[in-house]
């Protein structure tokens, strides 16, 4: 029993050493990669929460984590957009075949955020409720807004 315990402990220690070395290697490799989010921006926002660290690598770690998160949400939204485009093409072929511009729309984003934020939001339909619930941001969507009688006839998309 003692031998088994010792072996298991040794195995764990070995694994921990491997993990530690992997982590340190990862942190070292972070210095080679510059995240899209600037370091100063990350420092500014985490300092607002009390996170204080002089080590640049940790800042970069946070930046990379955030970038990964945003990229995931964006990828999901992109897939929704592409799915919608392929569905639309089947219906209308007279007009422009494909809208070649992949646009990040609220609809796709809401779906992506809804998926990403877990099963607890499965009943939430729109982005507003989702963001409002998770992040405390109250985003009101006006049912209709008309500043001229012709508004709403042709929905205009922004670029």
């Amino acid at each position, binding site marked *: 029993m003692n031998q088994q315990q010792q072996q298991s402990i040794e195995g*764990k220690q070995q*694994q921990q050493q*491997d*993990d*530690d070395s*992997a*982590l340190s290697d*990862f*942190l070292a490799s972070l210095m080679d990669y510059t995240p899209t*989010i600037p370091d100063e*921006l*990350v420092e500014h*926002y*985490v300092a*607002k*929460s*009390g*996170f*204080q*660290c002089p080590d640049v*690598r*940790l800042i970069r*770690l*946070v930046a990379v*984590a*955030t*970038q990964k*998160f*945003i*990229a995931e*949400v*964006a990828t999901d939204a*992109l897939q929704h*957009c592409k799915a919608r485009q392929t569905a639309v093409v089947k219906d209308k072929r007279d007009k422009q075949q494909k809208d070649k*511009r*992949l*646009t*990040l*729309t*609220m609809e796709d*984003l809401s779906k992506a*955020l809804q998926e990403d934020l*877990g*099963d607890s939001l499965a009943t939430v339909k729109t982005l507003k409720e989702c*963001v409002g619930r*998770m*992040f*405390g*941001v109250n*985003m*009101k*969507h*006006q049912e209709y*807004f008309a500043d001229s009688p012709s*508004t*709403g006839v042709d929905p*205009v*998309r*922004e*670029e």
Partner: protein
Amino acid sequence: MNNGGGENVRDNNSSSSNNNSNNNQDGVIRKKGQGSGGGSGSGSDDYGRAITKIAVAQICESVGFQCFQHSALEVLSEVAVRYLRDLGKTAHFYANVAGRSDCNVFDIVQGLEDLVSSQGFSGASDVNHSISSSVVKDRKPTPSFLQIGEVPDKEHIPAWLPAFPDPHTYVHTPVWKERKTDPRADKIAQARQRRKEEQSLFNLQRRLACNGSSAFASANTVDDGKAKQVVQSNPFLAPPLQSGEKEVSPVVPPAKLSKEPLVNSRNSVLDAFAPAIGTANTGLSDSKDDDRMVLPNKRPILNFQLGVSKKSLGLPVDLTLQNKLLGETTQLIGRGDEKDDKKRRAEQILKESMENSRELS
């Protein structure tokens, strides 16, 4: 996208201050007194937010988007800021829990694990365990009482809480070795033992019958044709026989003297065991040597020691059987007080045997 960056800044400034919107899909984002130092509106963090929008736009471009809606971008940048702040807050919290004011990498790892709770990196929050070696897996929460179908024991426990673990996981019960019991084999062994007991008991009785009292004689089973008389009275309780009153079968002399079988007259105890004797003999003859137990056929030879007896009453009866070709020889160490009676009988037997031998020879 480069132009978009510049336009974003302008739009952000304009939309955050008033309700201007260019299309139906634009919305107004109102912050709930967040991060702006509680100031009126949203003034203080505009610069940081603008840079965040640029960064998020660049990320979207790297993912594959070519253009975006203003509102969508704003929402996404807001999400990014929230994420950053939550991560910092969580990491700081873990550092405080550990008694530190400065954060280290493990605090960040734990904070990450908190924020990505549905898809867990198992074991990432261990201080001694790195997140890079963990495997992404879906954690299944413990099923509740309702899901299992159990009813909680106590009233104060609601049914939607996770169920208790099974008692066998925490109760240690003693374990006994299971002995395989074969009832059929047991019965067979039991029957065999009983037969052995009966056989040995019967042998003992037979020896006693042959060697004990001279009131009965051996049956001649060699002839196989003679029937045995059934005992009507207990020979042990009967008054002693006088000499000449009863015909007693002659004693088979030792093998060296004569090899003739004897005539049987009466057998008491042996008759009672006649069926058993028959079966025993057949059984014995099957399994053992033939010349070992031919007990009732011949009358055992009694060797008496005539003379002054110095033996005590508690002498055991020596029932050693010696194998002979035709009969058995038993030695009986008689008791002192019965000596006269046996002496008389012995003399009579010897007389008869001598007569027989004379007749035959």
